[in-house]
């Protein structure tokens, strides 16, 4: 079947923070850029970020990028690549000032500068004491940032394909990425898009867990597209559990609550983080706090009839601070936990929040894969940025506020790199003759099925499996059982059946396609986690309790073909400063 075709310079898949930041560089340079988004761009998941953007502006106390860099490397449990981390922390102030110039409604200090609050793992002078580094717009920083970036793209007349779902990448015979196949949700129309480059900016896949702070749209579409095109996924065993999801509901409560002075209490009313992290206490990094909470619950000091959560107390901050700095949190607590935090503590539990791993890239956003002995050989025409990418700046554990920063820094870097790259690559490569056939065959299977598995039920089984077998604490038995179970789920995904055969806004078919992406991420997660025999950052194993730098200071690479693992070295060499050698992590 001949598909209609459109031609652009660059296609960006995803209209969240990183995709919009990259689009802006290209649109303002007058390149033909198109942004594809499953939802209207301001509905992307960046909108849900709350606490702040990390940058060493030094508006509150003395601060500098080298301290930020140290904190990020330590937070990553030394798995982060130090060249990319230096790049990000040095660029941080520039991209935050730019965002302010775009119109971002940051909170302000009496002198008119941007207000900054403390956040977990961010310190002054290499771990000495907490520092106020998180640039905040109340507790709606992501919302304010996403709307600001969208607005700036409206000004730049960027072209959007709203409510289009990208299905597959198109690679030519030399392996270059030359376009993609996408489907308009409203009509079901499938179209070919030819381009010189494709940027994947599809966000994370936190929906592989049953209990997750993530939006329903976070189904790992970019990772599914990459894996199906033969690209490995990096460090997929590392999933961040945010310490404070509302118990039962999963909705996020920002770490900014603890930044403003909130504390965690167990059933005995004890501020237990003082025992686990004497210096940073409740502001230790997220993996440390989540494990401490889980430990308290395991040892019977959880709260509630089932002793299955702990409490986040903030009433001592007073109504003024809560209403001014944390109004959205108060709204969420009242709606989802039925408590008013001005009077009562919020029940919270560690909840899946963020994927540190993703599509391997360098710090220009170019996708890199092992080839002919080079672990980081560039895939021509393919970029990945934001949560779907693994640069890797977050390593084994991301610091709060570094995700919004990641979106801005690497979105801009990829956009800038593309502007230069397009100058020397004026021609489009040809599309292969069979372009689009693979996507059409996937759709044809769904359109012609008359019986099979329910997408909803297989999805539930997927989420249950990942939740139960790749949670906060892991063991060989849990993980190897999980690997077998997820293989069975993967077989069921191939047999899904959608009753609805309509072309018009067929959300059932969209969900079936999303499930085909989720299963890629779920398999990568379990196989990578089973293989890594150590504890590092968010990957905590009861049977290998220690970090093992001798054998495991390396990045995992999972290939869909053969479900196999490969590894590549961590880059411990920064761009200009001396390396930070791995040390024991104490907060």
């Amino acid at each position: 079947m001949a598909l209609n075709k459109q031609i652009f310079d660059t296609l960006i898949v995803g209209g969240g923070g990183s995709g919009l930041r990259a689009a802006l560089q290209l649109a303002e340079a007058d390149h033909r850029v198109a942004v594809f988004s499953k939802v209207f761009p301001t509905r992307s998941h960046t909108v849900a970020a709350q606490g702040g953007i990390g940058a060493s502006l030094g508006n509150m106390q003395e601060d500098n990028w080298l301290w930020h860099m140290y904190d990020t490397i330590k937070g990553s449990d030394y798995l982060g690549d130090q060249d990319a981390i230096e790049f990000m922390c040095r660029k941080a102030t520039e991209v935050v000032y730019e965002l302010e110039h775009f119109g971002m409604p940051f909170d302000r200090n009496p002198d008119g500068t941007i207000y900054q609050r403390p956040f977990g793992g961010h310190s002054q002078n290499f771990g000495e004491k907490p520092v106020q580094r998180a640039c905040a717009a109340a507790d709606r920083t992501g919302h304010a940032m996403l709307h600001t970036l969208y607005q700036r793209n409206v000004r730049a007349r960027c072209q959007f394909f709203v409510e289009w779902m990208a299905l597959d990448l198109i690679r030519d015979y030399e392996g270059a990425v030359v376009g993609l196949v996408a489907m308009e949700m409203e009509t079901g129309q499938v179209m070919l898009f030819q381009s010189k480059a494709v940027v994947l900016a599809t966000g994370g896949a936190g929906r592989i867990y049953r209990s997750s702070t993530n939006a329903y749209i976070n189904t790992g579409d970019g990772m599914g597209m990459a894996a199906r095109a033969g690209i490995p996924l990096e460090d997929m065993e590392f999933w961040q559990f945010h310490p404070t999801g509302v118990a039962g509901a999963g909705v996020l409560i920002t770490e900014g609550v603890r930044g403003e002075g909130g504390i965690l209490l167990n059933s005995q009313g004890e501020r237990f983080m003082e025992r686990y992290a004497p210096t940073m206490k409740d502001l230790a990094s997220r993996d440390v706090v989540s494990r401490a909470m889980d430990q308290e619950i395991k040892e019977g000091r959880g709260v509630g009839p089932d002793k299955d959560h702990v409490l986040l107390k903030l009433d001592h901050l007073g109504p003024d601070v809560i209403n001014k700095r944390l109004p959205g949190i108060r709204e969420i607590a009242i709606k989802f936990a039925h408590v008013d935090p001005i009077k009562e503590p919020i029940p919270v539990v560690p909840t899946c929040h963020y994927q540190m791993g993703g599509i391997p890239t360098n710090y220009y956003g170019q996708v890199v894969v092992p080839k002919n002995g080079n672990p980081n050989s560039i895939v021509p025409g393919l970029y990945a940025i934001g949560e779907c990418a693994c640069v890797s700046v977050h390593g084994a554990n991301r610091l709060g506020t570094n995700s919004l920063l990641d979106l801005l820094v690497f979105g801009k870097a990829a956009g800038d790199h593309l502007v230069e790259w397009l100058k020397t690559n004026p021609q489009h490569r040809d599309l292969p003759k069979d372009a689009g056939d693979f996507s059409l065959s996937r759709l044809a299977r769904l359109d012609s099925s008359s019986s099979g598995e329910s997408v909803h039920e297989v999805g539930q089984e997927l989420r249950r499996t990942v939740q139960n077998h790749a949670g906060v604490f892991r063991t060989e038995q849990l993980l190897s059982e999980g690997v077998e179970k997820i293989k069975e789920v993967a077989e069921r995904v191939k047999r899904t059946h959608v009753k609805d055969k309509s072309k018009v806004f067929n959300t059932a078919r969209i969900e079936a396609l999303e499930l085909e992406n989720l299963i890629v991420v779920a398999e990568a997660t379990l196989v990578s986690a089973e293989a890594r025999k150590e504890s590092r950052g968010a990957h905590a194993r009861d049977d290998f309790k220690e970090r093992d730098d001798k054998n495991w200071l390396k990045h995992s690479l999972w290939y869909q073909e053969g479900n196999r693992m490969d590894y590549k070295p961590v880059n411990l060499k920064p761009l200009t400063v001396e390396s930070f050698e791995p040390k024991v992590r104490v907060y």
Partner: protein
Amino acid sequence: MKFSIYRFNPEVDEKPYMQDYDIELAPTDRMLLDAILKIKALDDSLALRKSCREGVCGSDGMNINGKNGLACITPLKDLKEPVVLRPLPGLPVIRDLIVDMGQFFKQYHSVKPYLINDNPPPQKERLQSPEDREELNGLYECVLCACCSTSCPSFWWNPDKFVGPAGLLQAYRFIADTRDEATNERLDNLEDPYRLFRCHTIMNCVDVCPKGLNPTKAIGKIKDALLKRSV
């Protein structure tokens, strides 16, 4: 719990109809969206938009027992049965609970919803006092769910000419921003019998806004600014 839901698929239905559902809910199903997704698990043909499920993305605006709201932050316990769900009124229906938001976004875009300041920016941030920043509270938090504009009779009658409460709220968000230098241009753009002055302060927008914002107040402030400019 009993539901009556508006159904229409232009491919197969000649006209819209209401479909009844009676479903068993668990204690963990707290919000209307939880219940709708239970229904969708049984009947995958029911179409709706959804994303963040916590009231910040603005996807799941719909008409709930006669009043516009976001399904994900509407508690089930407050709803009378059968719960009647319809698409947002006044916009063309694409399918079931999904409306064509084109006209709504066209009006939003028409107010130039971005900061205009052509002076070269300073090396660091532009300064703004906490008091000036507070002027933006109640404005920038809009999630563009369209609950307000689609509850406004003036928008129903003139969706092509009246900017509507959501667009006007954003117009004022930039007028109120001390960093923006296009106030005159913005006021010129709104000084029109339809674009601004079709607001008859019926205040449905204030009544339905899921984020507790007050577009009528912002519209009043735009009118004040116009008045001030003319004297």
